[in-house]
């Protein structure tokens, strides 16, 4: 008699979460997909069905969108090829048995990550300021280097944002790698050393392959985080992304179109394009790190 209730029980237990999820996430997500096929501008305007027009316009007639796509990809490349290796290096150093005060250093490198993005953006704005900023006056000037126009030269805007990203995100990624390193059985490394492997060979043939799941995880979050970057660039260079929109990220562009210009349907199309790009890149990345392989 209690059979059907027992089968029902799991569903009942997950239903509170699922109901919340459905209302605040699933339904709006589906609604916005629907909205992306319409044309709706302004408050209280009537939507007009336009099919794939919004998507087509994004890729064929929207220079700012392409700009935001290249900018964000530029940042993502910086994230993947600078921040991740730096984090791995930091993790290896912090994992080293010779290090004293390890806990202190871990905390120290992690704290930038918990600082609010807006605050970081404002402070880095002062750091990067051309005439009165910290870097130009305290670092470059004593070395006799010309001041760099960090936030005014379009070529330096994205590097500035990447520097901000390094400061903010290296710590957390190093933490993930440290966990991964701790899970590598030391017998494997000892066995390799006994077999005559050099430090580099131990790293390349033992440590790195064992880190593969963590690496896939870190890269996935690096990609997702890079394409979603919003708070820091907006506070650093402003809502239009600075000179020549050099700091315009895709989410910033979505925000401008949707919430400042009230082109909601167009913004929905941008959102979905962003999501698809992230999914595609993540899948590619997972294949490249061979995360799906069972070894």
């Amino acid at each position, binding site marked *: 008699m209690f059979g059907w209730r027992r089968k029902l029980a799991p569903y009942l237990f997950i239903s509170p979460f699922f109901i919340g999820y459905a209302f605040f996430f699933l339904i709006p997500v589906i609604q916005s997909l629907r909205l992306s096929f319409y044309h709706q501008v302004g408050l209280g305007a009537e939507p007009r069905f336009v099919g794939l027009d919004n998507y087509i316009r994004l890729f064929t007639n929207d220079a700012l969108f392409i700009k935001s796509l290249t900018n964000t990809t530029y940042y993502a490349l910086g994230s993947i090829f600078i921040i991740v290796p730096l984090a791995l290096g930091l993790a290896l150093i912090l994992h080293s048995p010779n290090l004293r005060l390890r806990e202190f250093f871990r905390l120290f490198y992690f704290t930038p990550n918990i600082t609010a993005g807006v605050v970081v953006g404002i402070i880095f704005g002062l750091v990067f300021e051309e*005439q*009165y900023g910290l870097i130009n006056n305290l670092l470059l000037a004593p070395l006799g280097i010309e001041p760099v126009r960090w936030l005014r030269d*379009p070529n330096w805007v994205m590097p500035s944002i990447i520097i901000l990203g390094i400061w903010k995100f290296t710590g957390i990624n190093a933490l993930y790698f440290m966990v991964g390193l701790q899970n590598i059985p030391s017998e494997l490394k000892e066995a390799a050393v006994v077999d005559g492997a050099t430090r580099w060979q131990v790293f390349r043939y033992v440590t790195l392959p064992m880190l593969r799941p963590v690496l896939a995880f870190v890269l996935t979050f690096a990609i997702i985080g890079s394409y979603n970057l919003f708070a820091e660039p907006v506070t650093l260079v402003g809502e239009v992304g*600075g000179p020549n929109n050099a700091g315009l990220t895709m989410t910033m562009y979505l925000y401008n179109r949707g919430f*400042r210009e009230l082109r909601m349907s167009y913004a929905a199309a941008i959102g979905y394009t962003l999501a698809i790009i992230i999914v595609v890149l993540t899948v590619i990345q997972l294949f490249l790190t061979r995360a799906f392989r069972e070894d």
Partner: protein
Amino acid sequence: MNKSLRLLIVVASLLLLIVAPTLTSAQEAVSLELWTFVNTHARWFREQAERYREEVNPNFELEVVEIAGSDLFARLRISLQSGGVGAPDIADIEQGSFGSFLRGGGDPGLVVLNDLLEEGGYNEQLVSSRQALYTYQGNTYGIEHALTPVVLYYRADVWEGAGFDPQTFETWDDFVGAARAIVADNPGVVPLPIHGALHEILLRQQDADYFDADGNVTIDSEISIETMNWLLSLQEEGIAAQPPTGDALWAAFKDGTLISWVGADWYAGFFKDNAPELEGLWKAAPLPAFEPGGRRTSVWGGTGAMVVATSPNVEAALDFLEFAMLSVEGNVRRFELTNLFPPFIPAMDNERLHAEDAYFSGQDLGALFAEVGPEAPAQYQSPFRSQLNDLNTAAFQDIIDGIRTPEEVYTEIAATIRDEMAFES
């Protein structure tokens, strides 16, 4: 006690309970929420609420919420988009962002004030060119806080020390001549900072603007390109330069790099808030004209107080706005607190607008604003103004650095905006 007596007592008590609130206070309790992004306005609104309580309704409450500029407009737009959830009763909306509420030709979600303004005869008492900023297709949605007459603020000690008196500059040629001499003796000093709004301000001084009265884009007009080229030529001579932004701007004022500033009445308050150590060193003069006898002022900025249509207290909100913003006392008090010159004509010659300002070397700023105020040019609204401003901001650095000419940039921007207008109609 018998049943009927008990019944009578119960009924009487109930009646008394219902009637009691109206016996104790003659006015009903009103509670309004107001959003503003200017802390000087917030101070003034709170004072006006105090005055309203004393003079009109002791049960009036006004909650003034201060929200940072672009956040306020975004939150209000989102609120209105979702039918008014979380929206305030009254909101200060900056003129540059008001246009975006008009996008798509839909209802901006704000109360039309035409009746209020007509019935009170206020239309004749407000400077119409300012009200044009909050009017679209015949409907007025906001009441202007400030006339925003633009003047030349200058470091009196530096200019007078070099033997010049900006009060006597009739034209920009006079200004440039003096600036050359000062820069020759003091290299590194910037007589004319080219800030982001300067081009716009100078255009309006010459009766032009980025949009015309019919909403057409005019940023690519001859006069717009010429004005920018003129500024670039001054930059080349070393007289004009791009100032820093944010906190660094005040550092540049304080270390004496910037010795003048083309700004509106509300900028006086900024000087006092951000650079108090420069008190007594500044003065203000009318803008030099482009031609002898030409206009000596312009307009920059402006904020309109508006009533949100989804408010459950529209009548009460309108009443408070009328009391605060369409009264001589309200306008005069606002000037005393914020240095914002009123767009309300009956208040303009009030003697309290003419106090000596210690920061500005004892000058009567009110008299200066009153002198140039009547010449204030019109500025036209457009639903595409904020988008144009975005494009212009992004391209500004290229123009200043000489990477692209003003002609190239303005032509491109105008074409983009025209495309957008066509796309959305």
